[in-house]
């Protein structure tokens, strides 16, 4: 992941050496907690251990921005939708007490040209905000898109925007209304 980041001009490697950007591997956390199951499913005790690990990381490092990439990978380990809801709700509860804003990266699916917000349909209900990213087909070309679907407590654009990764960062521009011929294509 770090070697991928280094290809972007806007990535500042000194953030890593200054311990301002920390990257944790979930499989390593699982190993250390001893929660890796052969059947790939977390028990209630495993879930508590994992939540505790997140809490320790945020508390000890004074984290104010946390990205979980992807929450879908965690959700696949949970036995049912109730557990997923409970896990995300508890995660958001303790993170908010630390003043930490969390971005949960969720995989999506496209069904009949409609892009869902998540595979399990739970994450978007619990989250304060949903930012939908995807691709749009125009004359055979793929354009990256971004749309803020919800963002509690703030006024925001609900229009679809085109995004580009530039040497100076992510650039956003409103999408032309007539410039979409193939609908939302891939996720």
């Amino acid at each position, binding site marked *: 992941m770090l070697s991928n980041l280094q290809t972007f001009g806007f990535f500042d490697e000194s953030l890593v050496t200054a311990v301002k950007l920390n990257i944790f591997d979930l499989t390593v956390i699982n190993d250390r907690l001893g929660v890796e199951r052969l059947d790939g499913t977390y028990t209630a005790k495993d879930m508590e251990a994992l939540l505790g690990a997140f809490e320790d990381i945020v508390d000890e490092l004074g984290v104010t921005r946390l990205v979980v990439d992807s929450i879908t990978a965690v959700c696949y380990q949970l036995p049912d939708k109730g557990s997923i809801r409970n896990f995300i709700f508890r995660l958001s509860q303790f993170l908010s007490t630390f003043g930490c804003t969390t971005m949960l990266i969720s995989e999506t699916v496209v069904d009949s040209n409609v892009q869902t917000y998540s595979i399990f349909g739970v994450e978007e209900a619990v989250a304060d905000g949903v930012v939908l990213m995807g691709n749009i087909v*125009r*004359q055979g*070309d793929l*354009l990256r898109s971004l749309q803020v679907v919800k963002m509690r407590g703030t006024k925001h654009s609900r229009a679809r925007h*085109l995004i*580009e990764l*530039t040497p*100076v960062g992510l*650039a956003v*521009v*409103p*999408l*032309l*209304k*007539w*410039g979409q011929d193939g609908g939302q294509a891939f996720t």
Partner: protein
Amino acid sequence: MGTRWRAGFHVSVADVAKSVIKSINNGDTLATVGLGASNFHEGTIKLATVLLGKKLGGIYITTSRPSSHFIKELEDAKANLNDLYFVDLVSMTVGGSTDDARSLYIESPTMLESILLNITLLERRLKSKRRFVMFDSINGLSIYSEPKVLKEFINVLANSMRIKSIYSMLMTVKEQTGEDLSAALELLSDAVIGD
């Protein structure tokens, strides 16, 4: 503001350049500049050279030829290229050179929003106080985009440039510009110059 210099007869490139300078001095922000197909390329090079000579910095958007060609021709015309940048919609499509530091390259001419985005990026690099954007040409985009998409883009481009207060010239080829497109451009522009 709102002046019309459209002539009913063929206008020389020198006259077009004079009209553009007059339009800038009048405080216009958006002009449609029409040239005939026979002198279109020569005209755009000359117009850019005149503006650069007047100490304006600019962004040149090219849809008809690679930016490397324009750079060479502007250098041949002894134009000052210190504060001129390019948004190139051609080179990546045809596999041309994409390593000029003055140019930002767009992968496909259908990615119209990228033009706006790249203008914003290049605008930060302009050193001159008086700035221009030269869009060469509106007709070049019509090859790849449907009329309704093109009209929407022109509308967004024109108003974006107006908000930024950058003098913008929408170059059109007289023989390729139908009445419908002409009317849309005239409606948006402060000045209609040339053929």
